[in-house]
């Protein structure tokens, strides 16, 4: 894996006319993990999309060295296809990277994606990300809908990814049990007079 680095400098993001966050900054090197913590609606997802380069920050810069993978509330799989075939599409695009963890999807290989439960969809999304070969993982609420067992597997996958020199940024309202995890509370970055 190529060396990864993710630096955010004085980021501000807004939705519509409302500035959600300002002055968000951090620097992550290979093996680092960061937890973006904050209540619902604070702008975690918007910030994730900015870090991914999919949205523009209204101030500040993001510098990413290495490929970026994003897992958010979307599941980029064709609903009518069996799970295995739908995952195979991304596997072929990503050039057959060995997945980093087993999310127990083998039993669901023949099930069309649209019949998956919430937790199963989350596991499929994690499987997509973990087989993408991306160096910088951006995980937006990765634990939503996962039971205790699969929460543990997701943690293990993130740790394995870091052990290989990857970076993980996790936006979550839940606590995370990752070794040496940096926590960035977003509440202090909400501009005065805004927020909810």
């Amino acid at each position, binding site marked *: 894996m190529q060396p990864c680095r993710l630096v955010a400098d004085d980021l501000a993001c807004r939705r519509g006319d409302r500035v959600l966050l300002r002055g968000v900054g951090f620097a992550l090197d290979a093996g680092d993990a960061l937890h973006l913590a904050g209540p619902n609606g604070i702008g975690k997802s918007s910030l994730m999309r900015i870090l991914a380069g999919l949205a523009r920050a209204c101030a500040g810069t993001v510098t990413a060295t290495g490929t970026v993978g*994003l897992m*958010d509330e979307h599941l*980029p799989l064709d609903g009518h296809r069996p799970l295995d075939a739908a995952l195979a*599409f991304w596997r*072929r*695009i990503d050039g057959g990277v060995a997945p980093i963890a087993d999310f127990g999807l083998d039993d669901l290989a023949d099930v069309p994606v649209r019949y998956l439960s919430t937790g199963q969809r989350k596991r499929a999304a994690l499987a997509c990300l973990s087989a993408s*070969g*991306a160096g910088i993982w951006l995980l937006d609420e990765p634990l939503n809908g996962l039971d205790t067992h699969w929460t543990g597997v997701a943690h293990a996958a993130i740790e394995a990814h870091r052990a290989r020199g990857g970076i993980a940024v996790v936006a979550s309202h839940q606590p995370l049990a990752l070794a040496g995890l940096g926590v960035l509370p977003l509440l202090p970055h909400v501009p005065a007079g805004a927020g909810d």
Partner: protein
Amino acid sequence: MARTPTKLALIFVRDCTILLGGARGRGGAVLPLLFFLAVAMLYPFGVGPDAKLLARTGAGVIWVAALLAAILPLDRLVEPDLEAGFFDQWALRGLSEEAVMLVRIVAHWLCFGVPLMLATPIAAGLLAIDGHALIVLELGLLAGTPGLAAIGVTIAALTAGLRAGAALGGLLLIPLAVPLLIFGAGSLQAGGENGLLLLAAASLVAVAVAPFAAGAAIRAARD
């Protein structure tokens, strides 16, 4: 990681499978085709079995039917993939929106334009169109349907995510496709073969502009 042309080829195969197969319960390539043939079948009932009248007006009816059939697949061309986050994931893998949209235009043309051209001889039979007119008609469709597909994908990208997107898409497509209809139907009049060149030119402009317009629309939808 696979190289960019390989990735685009994989996306092309997927697009074709989905546009052809009628997945997501919205009818695939068959629905516009049946609509197209239904118009050709109903028209003689409407104006009566006068072969001369049918032959004179039939080719124009085929062009109108092709244009209206192009409206049917609009709502499933872009929106489902935008909702599922496919475009985000492609962007993260370094594929430009323009390239992805060009691939989609070609796939849409294959799944929409080509079946229409294959069905045209049947429609021509129903409308008493003779051999020479049929050839001009097919040439016209060959030149015109890529433009129709390009306009369709652009409008689908522009209206994706809007609540009344499907209805709005239909309304937007009609004025943009009028040049194709005018040159296409015009080329069928006696001595109007040069219309084919204008038709091809109009179609080419649409195909050239569409990937950029549709790509910009996808990016704008992200903000």
